């Protein structure tokens, strides 16, 4: 499985649309993950999505992004996990352990933003954005497979 993360230095880039670098992580069972950096700068949005498709990306983990980029990504068959914030290391670790839905990785405004992100292939929708829940008493730890019983689909 190939994961792509638009990055800035050691963090997930705040906005995928404006990111200059793309980190590609190839995760295969029984093998250590392989990391590769790609240029993501100066491209128009369709070209960015075409790059993702050409790199055979399965999952895009990113910070904020525009509607057109979200729509093009999802409709290209790429699983989208948007509005993630944090260091690359922490985010990848949380993704592998199914804890990326934790409050500490969520960007502010996530609840409202999830209303417009296309439903298909968007993992975050399956996890739901639990900022309010988290604010009222602890974060959520959901699995990547989206198998929580009350998940909204």
């Amino acid at each position, binding site marked *: 499985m190939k994961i792509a993360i638009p990055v800035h230095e050691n963090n997930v880039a705040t*906005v995928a649309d404006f990111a200059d670098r793309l980190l590609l992580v190839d995760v295969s069972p029984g093998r250590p993950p392989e990391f590769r950096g790609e240029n993501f700068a100066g491209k128009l949005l369709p070209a960015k999505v075409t790059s993702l498709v050409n790199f055979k990306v399965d999952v895009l983990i990113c910070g904020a992004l525009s509607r057109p980029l979200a729509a093009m990504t999802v409709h290209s068959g790429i699983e989208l996990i948007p509005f993630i914030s944090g260091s690359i290391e922490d985010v990848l670790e949380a993704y592998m352990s199914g804890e990326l839905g934790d409050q500490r990785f969520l960007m*502010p405004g996530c609840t409202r*933003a999830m209303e417009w992100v296309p439903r298909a292939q968007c993992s975050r929708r399956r996890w739901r954005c639990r900022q309010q829940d988290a604010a009222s008493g602890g974060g959520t730890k959901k699995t990547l497979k989206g198998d929580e019983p009350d998940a909204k689909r």
Partner: protein
Amino acid sequence: MAQNEDTKNFTDLVIESIADGIFTVGLDWKVASFNLAAQEITGIKKSEALGRTCREVLRASCCETNCPLDEAMKTGNPVVNRVVSVIDAHGQKRSISISAAPIRDTGGRITGGVETFRDIGSIERVRDEIGREYACQDILSVNHEMRNLFDLLPVYAESTSTVVIEGETGTGKELFARALHNLSPRRTKPFIAVNCGALPDTLLESELFGYKAGAFTDAKRDKPGRFALAEGGTIFLDEIGDISPALQVRLLRVLQERTYEPLGGIHPVKADVRVIAATNKDLAALVREKQFRDDLYYRLNVIRIDIPPLRERKEDIPLLADHFIARFNVLQKRNIQGMSENALAHLMRYDFPGNVRELENIVERAFLICRAGQITQAHLPRLFEDDAGGDAEDTEHAGSLKKVEAAFLMKALKRNNWNRLKTAQELGIHKSTLFRKIKSLGLELPPSRKGG
């Protein structure tokens, strides 16, 4: 203590009521305050923004590469009106203008920063709306006469009749021709523009109608002409008033019979092409002077569009200036805020012999000189000032001075019986200086008495 509390409440009230988005951060980049306008622009609630890093909240294109707040806090100097893009919580890309300044404690130490930002996307939307209302294809105008033309263009476009567009140079004749084509059922077919004045007559003929192999030396292969290239579409013949009588005849045949013969060809070729001709000359006057065939004129003049010069629609100058500024801002990645009222008033006094093209050039030139803020009168060209009358008085004054000098010299020469040596001695100047003066002033001396 109570007074401090009151002051704080008052400050909070003021900050909340300001239309610009405002937030403050500490040295840890965490948002410490976030006003109502900031919530509206970013789409993020104050409760969600407080305590988060400002980049997560603002989500601007400059956050990670060229942060104005970082610059202001590092240098201690404010950053003013930097235009950047942000992605709001609704996933919409917006243009905002950011200003940033450091916050200092009583000892002058920087303890954080304040960023104010304004949504200029809404200004751009208004501009777009204005543009839509006062635009037809790529032509902008608020002028009544032009608006009438905009209303008629779709009607003209539906027809296949030939069109003559008359207008001074730089009024946008080709824009009108393109608009007619783009609004017509032929829009999916080619639009071919030919400047008839730019080519010699023989070349223009082969350019328009093409040639067959062997038609002349070096014609080794068939070459399709512009009429063939425009098949099914529109051909725009600019500067039609400049074509020769011989070519006028050939063009008349195309319009009458809808056929033409390529050079060296023996069979006529059918032409399904709409002809739009344009000229900056008065075609009717050329007909009267027998320089343009009357039969061709009447064939062409089925639909006639007269584009008024810019001096007759000066109300368009602010709209056009604004349009060019917006365009050059995008093309040159600049952030010129517009044109000052004085500069605009100055432009309004000018007659623009070069019409819209000249205005565009003036704005482009002003962009070279004006690095930021507004285009002022100082950024407008000197030539313009001359034409606008700024230095006209000086020129007139200089002219009258020369007249006085010429009259003075003529009197002195006459007094000395046209003897230039004596005249020079009387005036206390060298004779060669006098000769130079006589030459430069163009003084005519009596031929018989030039010696001396």
